[in-house]
């Protein structure tokens, strides 16, 4: 702080002469200008302001506006002096040169030091000065701007309808300086309350017409031969406040009560003006002229964008063409503004295609040396991205990210992440893209981004996305050094979905643990906490991991970080504290995340760019790919629920069965209005399916439109299944199709009503009211299996609704059983010989909650299920107590062995009841693991229904 001794001495000296005081105050100003705080010497400034000499006043006011703040207590003492200067000439009725000059100084100072108190005491005087006849042009224009400054601080002070007439009066002033200032004032006020000043549009159009069409402008106000560009800008800005002006004018032209001539005359003039600006602006040699002209041009384009679809197509096309030219010019400012304005234009309906033509040009600007241009190019790319070009744009952006500098990286990463999510037609590509982001610029990948990956992967169980992600992340986390974020995502995803890839070579549970654990020592506490949870999940799934994980938990129980300590302690104690089932439940996969309306990424973008940036608007709009995905997952969820039922928790999501049923759907998702199976009929459907597994005929599905009935009979390895589709609605169902999935283990011959089995989308038969379509299947089983073939029924109702029901035919392994009667001794001998890991299946099932107590009668029912439903032969005599039921059967297949005999699989089943617990234990032992599983499943389901 250059606070020389001399300055301080001077400040306390009241007996300064004029020269010294002025010199002292200028020194203060100089110090202030250099950026230092000047909080002394203010009394000397006030002395100068109060002086009657213009020379001193001049210095005083200049210093006042620079040095003092409105809330300075000293301002109170000076206020009356300012008011005196402000009002003197007005009160006197005539203006003298010195008084005028003093008035101008006062106004200028007020404008520069607005404080609320100052405004309250002075705004009326400023308004009076502005409109007084006696005020000179010089004073008027300054007063207008001063008033605007006051209005900006406190919008309520200057408002009201009467003010509109005063401004209208100012707008008729011939002096262009006054006009410019009045227009600034009008624009400022109107942007706070557009409705109140709407009546002034014709004035603005008139002035603009004078400047643009007639070039009527005083010579001094031509700026490089352009008639006052400043005023033109203000006028165009003002007009942008009324985006509906065109539409309203068109409306009022047709209604008789308003004067159509006046209403639309100025609007058509305005359209002329705009098209003249668009067509006649030319590149000129002088940079200043070119800048001024282009400034006006950009404002005109902005106005067209404001009008949107209400403006003429020709204007919009013209604007588009110009912008296309601008984004490829060398002049950096024009290019910058061209990119910026084009991003705004892209928000208009129907502009997307024409903008996409410029994609290559924009990509060039993305590599510009100038950060401002790069930012705009990025923004524009973001806005122009859609499903067609997303992959290319995102790949370009990722490629550019490698060389992008730090200033723009965070923004790029965020935008790439949003685009990749929005427009991914294949989510595996999305996962790959985010992984690339992490590896290129991991520090800029915020938590929100990787959380989103987890959310999306969890919520999309269809296809092999989860397995793919798990495998990819395992590879990504394999190197000794990789980014912290990679470790986090990998830890989470492998914990959740690692089991899907555990059978692949080099990806076993143990391997997964080893790969994750190599990062343990370098990971930060937040990552370690995630790792601990993943370890717990791995240990739960793979026994071989338990001894590896236990020491980690034991060690981390004393960790400094509370979160890690708590997690480790809890996971370590879990196995002793709870039953295995409870542990299983606790460590199950996470349920799907709730779909929030606005993702965290969009939130972040909004914070960064403000609400009305083009990018934010863009991000909030769901893309076609997103909508499609949402429909897909909704449909898949329904399908999943139906299919997951008949077999209990026996298979992982990777089973080929499920993929077969859902994967085939993809081609049909363009049928937007798809109706699946309503949730409420699902429980009844499950029951119907289970019943049909053990009974020869019944109803498989029924709702208000359709009933599906099934009749099936089997001899040895062959079966005949008839399926009836009855139309229950009051109108015919068209495009009716039934598509039965072909499986390797079932040879199938299909016959049906004409068109029913068409594979073509538009084929199918029509089922009239109260009639049936029929399908006949002849099947032959060639190998053991444990699931049921899927059948997709689809049709279109009269209203054009497209219905599609994924169903399953009740063809299960037990259908092909042939009972075998065994002596007790022979049964036990075989029973024991089949003991072993994969030949045996066992599961405990509770009796249904409403079932009676388990007594002998109940056991008889169970026995009849085994004999009649499952087609097993009851082995009398090998059950020591009434609480067990044993049976034997042969699963007959049509496949031949080397000797030409049919291959059969012997099956044994035993149900043991525990009347106290109300539970049954079902054990099956067969020569083939799939058979064991299948028989167990059917038995379980049947017992539950008994």
């Amino acid at each position: 702080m250059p606070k020389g001794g001399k300055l301080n001495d001077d400040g306390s000296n009241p007996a300064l002469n004029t020269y010294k005081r002025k010199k002292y105050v200028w020194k203060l100003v100089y110090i202030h200008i250099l950026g230092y705080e000047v909080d002394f010497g203010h009394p000397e400034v006030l002395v100068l302001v109060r002086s009657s000499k213009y020379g001193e006043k001049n210095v005083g006011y200049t210093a006042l506006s620079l040095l003092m703040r409105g809330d300075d207590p000293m301002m109170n003492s000076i206020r009356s002096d300012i008011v005196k200067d402000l009002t003197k000439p007005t009160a006197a009725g005539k203006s003298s040169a010195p008084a005028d000059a003093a008035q101008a100084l006062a106004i200028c100072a007020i404008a520069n030091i607005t404080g609320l108190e100052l405004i309250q005491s002075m705004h009326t005087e400023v308004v009076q000065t502005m409109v007084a006849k006696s005020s000179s042009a010089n004073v008027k224009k300054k007063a207008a701007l001063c008033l605007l400054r006051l209005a900006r601080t406190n919008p309520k002070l200057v408002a009201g309808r009467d003010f509109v007439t005063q401004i209208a009066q100012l707008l008729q002033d011939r002096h262009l300086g006054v006009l410019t200032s009045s227009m600034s004032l009008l624009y400022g006020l109107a942007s706070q309350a557009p409705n109140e000043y709407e009546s002034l549009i014709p004035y603005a159009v008139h002035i603009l017409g004078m400047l643009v069409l007639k070039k009527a402008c005083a010579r001094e106000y031509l700026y490089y031969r352009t008639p006052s560009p400043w005023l033109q800008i203000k006028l165009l800005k003002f007009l942008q406040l009324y985006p509906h002006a065109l539409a309203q004018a068109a409306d009022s032209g047709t209604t008789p009560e308003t004067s159509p001539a006046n209403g639309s005359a100025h609007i058509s003039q305005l359209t002329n003006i705009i098209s003249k600006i668009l067509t006649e602006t030319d590149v000129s040699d002088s940079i200043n002229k070119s800048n001024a002209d282009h400034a006006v041009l950009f404002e005109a384009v902005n106005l067209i964008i404001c009008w949107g679809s209400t403006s003429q197509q020709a204007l919009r096309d013209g604007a588009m063409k110009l912008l296309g030219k601008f984004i490829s010019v060398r002049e950096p400012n024009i290019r910058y503004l061209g990119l910026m304005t084009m991003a705004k234009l892209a928000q208009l309906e129907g502009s997307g295609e024409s903008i996409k033509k410029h994609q290559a040009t924009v990509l060039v600007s993305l590599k510009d040396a100038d950060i401002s241009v790069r930012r705009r190019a990025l923004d524009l790319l973001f806005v122009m991205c859609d499903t067609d070009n997303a992959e290319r744009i995102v790949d370009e952006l990722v490629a550019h990210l490698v060389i992008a500098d730090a200033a723009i990286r965070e923004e790029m990463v965020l935008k790439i992440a949003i685009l990749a999510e929005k427009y991914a037609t294949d989510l595996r590509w999305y996962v790959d893209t985010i992984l690339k982001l992490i590896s290129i610029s991991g520090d800029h990948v915020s938590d929100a981004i990787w959380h989103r990956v987890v959310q999306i992967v969890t919520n999309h169980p269809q296809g092999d996305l989860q397995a793919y992600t798990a495998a990819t992340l395992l590879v990504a986390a394999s190197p000794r050094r990789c980014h912290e974020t990679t470790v986090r995502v990998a830890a989470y995803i492998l914990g959740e979905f690692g089991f899907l890839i555990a059978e692949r070579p080099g990806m076993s549970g143990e391997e997964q643990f080893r790969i994750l654990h190599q990062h343990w020592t370098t990971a930060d506490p937040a990552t370690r906490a995630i790792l601990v949870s993943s370890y717990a999940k791995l240990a739960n799934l793979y026994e071989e991991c338990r001894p590896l994980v236990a020491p980690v938990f034991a060690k981390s129980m004393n960790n400094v970080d509370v979160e890690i300590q708590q997690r480790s302690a809890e996971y370590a104690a879990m196995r002793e504290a709870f039953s295995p089932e409870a542990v299983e439940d606790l460590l199950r996969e996470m349920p799907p995340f709730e779909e929030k309306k606005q993702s965290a990424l969009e939130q972040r973008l909004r914070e960064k760019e403000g609400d009305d940036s083009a990018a934010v608007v863009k991000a909030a709009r769901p893309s076609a790919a997103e909508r499609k995905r949402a429909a897909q997952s909704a449909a898949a969820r329904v399908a999943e629920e139906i299919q997951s039922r008949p077999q209990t928790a026996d298979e992982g999501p990777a089973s080929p069965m499920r993929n077969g049923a859902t994967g085939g759907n993809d081609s049909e998702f363009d049928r937007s209005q798809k109706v699946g199976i309503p949730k409420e009929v699902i429980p009844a459907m499950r029951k119907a399916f289970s019943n049909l597994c053990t009974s020869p005929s019944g109803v498989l599905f029924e709702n208000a439109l359709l009933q599906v009935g099934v009749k099936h009979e089997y001899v040895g390895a062959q079966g005949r299944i008839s399926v009836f589709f009855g139309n229950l609605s009051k109108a015919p169902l068209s495009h009716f199709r039934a598509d039965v999935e072909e499986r390797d283990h079932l040879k199938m011959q299909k016959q049906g009503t004409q068109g029913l089995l068409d594979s073509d989308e538009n084929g199918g038969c029509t089922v009239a009211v109260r009639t049936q379509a029929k399908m006949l299947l002849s099947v032959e089983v060639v190998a053991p299996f444990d699931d049921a073939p899927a059948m997709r029924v689809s049709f279109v109702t009269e209203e054009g609704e497209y219905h599609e029901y994924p169903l399953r035919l009740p063809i299960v392994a037990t259908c092909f059983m042939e009972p075998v009667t065994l002596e007790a001794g022979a049964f036990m001998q075989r029973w024991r010989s089949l003991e072993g890991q994969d030949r045996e299946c066992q599961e405990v099932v509770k009796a249904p909650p409403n079932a009676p107590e388990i007594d002998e009668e109940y056991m008889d029912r169970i026995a009849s299920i085994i004999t009649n439903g499952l087609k097993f032969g009851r082995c009398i005599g090998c059950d020591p107590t009434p609480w067990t039921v044993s049976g034997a059967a042969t699963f007959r297949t049509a496949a031949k062995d080397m000797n030409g005999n049919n291959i059969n699989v012997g099956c044994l089943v035993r149900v043991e009841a525990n009347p106290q617990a109300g539970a049954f234990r079902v054990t099956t032992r067969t020569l083939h693991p799939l058979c064991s599983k299948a028989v167990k499943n059917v038995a379980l389901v049947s017992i539950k229904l008994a």
Partner: protein
Amino acid sequence: MPTTTMTDMTGEAIAASPNLAACGWNFIVLMSRQGKIRLSEFFSSYSESDKRRILRDISSDILPRAPKMCNIIEKGTYKFVYRRYASLYFVVGVPEGMNELIVLEQIHLFVEALDGYFNSVCELDLVFSLHKSLLILFEMFIGGMLCESNKREVLKAIVEAEELVEEMTKPGEDTASQLDDGLSFHEQFQLGRAPGRRTNQPGHGRR
């Protein structure tokens, strides 16, 4: 971005709404190639720390830029629009939504007015006649908004004011101070400034 929380004199924050702010410049800073401030005026009220941050940003963001780059730098809620004249940068802070090209020309208009007054202005003119450049600035821009675009009228007003001062000053009182910037060479030296010669040095710092 909290970089421009404009605080009103009363301490109440002016809403950073684009409509309210789109009226005029937030500030103008004249900075030399070496990062020395030649003139600065903040039309919106900034706290001292905000001002310091802006000045620091100017020297770090603008001074290193290559001449072929565009003259606009985005800083969140506001933008720097700058123009370089010889070794002097004219930097204006404008709110989002203002027409950047016209701001560039407003800067040029100001420079032309200075040029007209000093008769081919150079950096030294601004150093020595700070008070004159301030008067021209205040005559042309009020509260950050362009008030008068007619150079002649601006210069006329300045000259009239000077005449007025002379008229009202008794002969012999202190007319000298009107031409002088009030600081002796010695005092300028104390302020960390190398004393320069007021007389023209051909080719030095000229536009």
